[in-house]
């Protein structure tokens, strides 16, 4: 595709993204504090889902252990608060990304040697090592009580926490998360459309041939693993001030399953799918929990229905419909 054609084909997507962004900017002014904070959680989960999909959608690796990197991001922040008494969100973000990236780099060395179920089980097993540490090293991690994280200072302390915590989360912190969400989305867009991103897709499609065109398969998988872990770590770091508390639950394997759910719900074959899936899941869970004690049953049924009826996920199905509508009718 020529550069000009590439620009033309990306234009409608970017226009739609700009419209959605305007909508997201308006959320705190149009909706209640509760709704805004719910969207804020959705944005945080969307960053994790974007990171996760670099592995699943673009590299063809199904991880069951991304709770490790989300948890690492969150616990890095909580431990910096506990031991260093840091308060700067910028420092938390950098530390969370680096902490999760470092663990992903280490775990990745082992995991990327394998594919398919072996890869999945290894990621799961390694994440559970971190979970057991979060649970059992209670004098450091607080065990099941977890660690509290107060509202941080934003933008190099230019913005200090407001009196009202909910007010802070629904305005200042919401916009802070939105800025990082936009930045993370832009960076991920760049990565998946870069020559490196093309190499990952080649590995996903045909590992042997990728090697025979000169792609260093294992090394590229490892880089993808680290980037994926770092994005998920960023999400963990942003999540913890929003939640105010981190507990071992977010390192436990069901949380990894939740990240898989985001991506499958939205569709892992499209760039926007994980974002749509994370936002949709967040709403679904919030309301299912509010309406019934059997909320897991509701989520389970939705998951099964999505897999059976919309295997392309919400965004994938929508994209397919749009493409079909745009395609001219065949000549008769």
């Amino acid at each position, binding site marked *: *595709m*020529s*550069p000009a*054609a*590439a620009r033309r084909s990306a234009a409608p997507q970017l226009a739609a993204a700009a419209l959605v962004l305007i909508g997201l900017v308006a959320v705190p002014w149009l909706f209640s504090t509760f709704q805004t904070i719910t969207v804020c959680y959705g944005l945080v989960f969307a960053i994790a889902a974007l990171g996760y999909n670099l592995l699943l959608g673009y590299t063809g690796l199904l991880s069951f252990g991304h709770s490790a990197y989300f948890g690492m991001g969150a616990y890095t922040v909580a431990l910096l608060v506990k031991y260093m008494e840091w308060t700067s969100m910028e420092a938390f973000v950098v530390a969370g990304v680096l902490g999760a990236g470092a663990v992903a780099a280490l775990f990745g060395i082992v995991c990327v040697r394998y594919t398919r179920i072996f890869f999945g089980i290894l990621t799961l097993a390694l994440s559970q090592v971190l979970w057991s540490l979060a649970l059992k090293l209670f004098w450091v991690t607080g065990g099941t009580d977890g660690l509290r994280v107060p509202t941080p200072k934003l933008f190099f302390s230019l913005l200090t926490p407001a009196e009202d915590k909910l007010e802070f989360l629904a305005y200042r912190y919401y916009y802070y998360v939105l800025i990082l969400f936009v930045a993370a989305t832009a*960076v991920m867009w*760049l*990565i998946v*459309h*870069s*020559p*490196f*991103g*093309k*190499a990952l*897709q*080649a590995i*996903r*499609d*045909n590992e*042997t*041939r*990728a*090697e*025979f*065109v*000169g*792609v*260093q398969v294992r090394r*590229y998988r490892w*880089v993808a693993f680290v*980037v994926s872990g770092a994005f998920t770590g960023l999400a963990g770091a942003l999540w913890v001030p929003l939640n105010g508390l981190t507990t071992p639950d977010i390192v436990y394997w069901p949380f990894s399953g939740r990240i898989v759910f985001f991506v499958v719900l939205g569709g892992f074959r499209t760039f926007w799918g994980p974002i749509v899936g994370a936002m949709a899941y967040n709403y679904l869970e919030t309301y299912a929990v509010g309406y019934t004690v059997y909320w897991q049953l509701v989520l389970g049924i939705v998951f099964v229905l999505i897999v059976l009826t919309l295997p392309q996920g919400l965004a994938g199905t929508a994209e397919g419909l749009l493409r079909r509508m745009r395609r001219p009718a065949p000549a008769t």
Partner: protein
Amino acid sequence: MTLLATRGLSKTFGALRAVDNVDFTVRPGEFLALIGSNGAGKTTLVNLISGLFRPDAGRIEFEGRDVTQQSVNERIRTGIARSFQLVNLFDQMSVFDNVALTVFARERKTRSLFALADRDAAVADEAAAILAQFGLATRARMVAGGLSQGERKLLDVAVAYALRPRLLFLDEPTSGVSTREKAPIMDVVTSVVRSQGITAVVIEHDMDVVFTYSDRIVAMHQGAILADGTPDEIRRNDQVTSTLIGTVAPA
């Protein structure tokens, strides 16, 4: 003068000696056909030379340099590329991206995480030119998995060609396509390869293709080299005709 030479190359799978003490040479600029019945060891020999398998014994020299221990990637950088018997493409990527990715990899640009691939005009131009050479320009935006078998065979060769190899192995470039499609595919492949001065080794079962397009023929049987000569010499070789070719019309 040889471009590639194997010395005592052997590979066994269990009790089967797939490649048995083979001394195989390729001269610069030739279009060589490797023939033999199924199981003769042709593909295994190519797998050993291209680095897919490690030999049990023997050595492989490219321009006099021992490449036996080199990885696949190192061999590609040395100038050895290959296509595959069963088409091996990136099926979910576009036809264009199959070639463009290869150019990116060759130029070591796949290390770049923060640049838009589609904005690289030099790579785009080269990929488009390669697709045009192989007659696939009109298919550029199609998904590779949607091509016909003949087109997939051509794209498989185009991907290997995009590495700008000096020695190109073509593993049955016309297998699985109709008789009518074979000559057009071979015409395109040989014209591109010869115009660029690339040395090529083609594994082929179709004797019409073999005798029409090759400068030299190496016949294999049960893991060993049975005969080596020009098409005329091979035609006159009784051992080859009785073992491999059967009744072949005289030239």
